[in-house]
């Protein structure tokens, strides 16, 4: 990579962090957002705003680098932290938790968030942890229904009311 491209990539990364990613405090949300800028067929990243300012190559490199970073961050979260991340994401999705959990367990949409050249064991760990976090969330949802006094704690307070049995 020559010096000019390197500078452009760095500027594109700073721009991506400053304008977009800084508004997403959740690492899981950041990962899903960055992965959504990747074309499934070619594996190339596209972001209209970044491309207009920094060009196609620098924009794609910045997104690739941000994707690898976000993936590594989520893959190394503890199971407790990942479960909280998942709860926040469910809350933001505005979908009923039971429906969300059911579709994530069956369709496994989280697999599309994996970077192309990620370490296979890190990928294995990521998938394993997401599946476990889904199972933990499902378990907590069931126990909360049986005993509302142990209902999910913050930051899932918004979700809490939606986890109560419908009367």
């Amino acid at each position: 990579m020559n010096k000019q491209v390197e500078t452009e990539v760095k500027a594109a990364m700073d721009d991506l962090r400053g304008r977009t990613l800084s508004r997403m405090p959740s690492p899981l949300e950041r990962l899903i957002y960055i992965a959504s800028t990747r074309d499934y067929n070619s594996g190339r990243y596209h972001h209209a705003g970044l491309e207009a300012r920094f060009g196609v190559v620098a924009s794609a490199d910045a997104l690739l680098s941000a994707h690898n970073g976000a993936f590594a961050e989520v893959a190394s979260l503890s199971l407790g932290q990942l479960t909280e991340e998942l709860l926040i994401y469910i809350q933001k999705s505005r979908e009923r938790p039971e429906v969300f959990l059911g579709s994530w367990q069956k369709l496994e949409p989280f697999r599309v968030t994996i970077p192309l050249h990620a370490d296979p064991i890190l990928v294995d760990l990521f998938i394993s942890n997401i599946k476990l976090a889904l199972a933990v969330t499902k378990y907590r949802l069931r126990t909360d229904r049986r005993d509302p006094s142990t209902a999910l704690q913050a930051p899932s307070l918004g979700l809490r009311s939606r986890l109560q049995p419908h009367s």
Partner: protein
Amino acid sequence: MTILSVVAALALFLILAAILAQSSSRSSAKLLAADLDSRELSPDCARSSEQILGRVFSDEDLRFVEGLGSAELTIALRTERKRLAVRWIYRTADEAKEIVRKHLQMASKAQDLRVTGELRLGLRYLELRLLCGCLVVLVDCFGPAKLRGMAARAENSIASLRAFSGLVETSG
């Protein structure tokens, strides 16, 4: 006597068929895994190895799941972590084998071999293989959560083997 011969021939035929079936399934598995194998030993793997080690050989997640009070979840976590730990150990052992294989290839052409350096490499390799063998057995018996120290030692050994091979490659 004739019946005995027929039974023996049939048994031999079955053994041969089983061997042929096994070798063909092994070669097709190899074909499908070819890409994965080459990625498994890429330099990026070395970077994420510590990350994997920190999560898989840690008891933090086990304590979290045990706190939930679900035996099913605890068993699921233990099984998953055991599987991941064994995969990491085998990859570490494979990487060491690959480093030594490459080194032996280069050493066979080298003019200025240093005996102490070669001996040190050999001992480090043997120590790592022994460590990996013990880790597989211990992980299988007790799970990876309490074996972080041993796994970290294996990681240090593979890191020094990597550094050694890098040093030889740049000087050669």
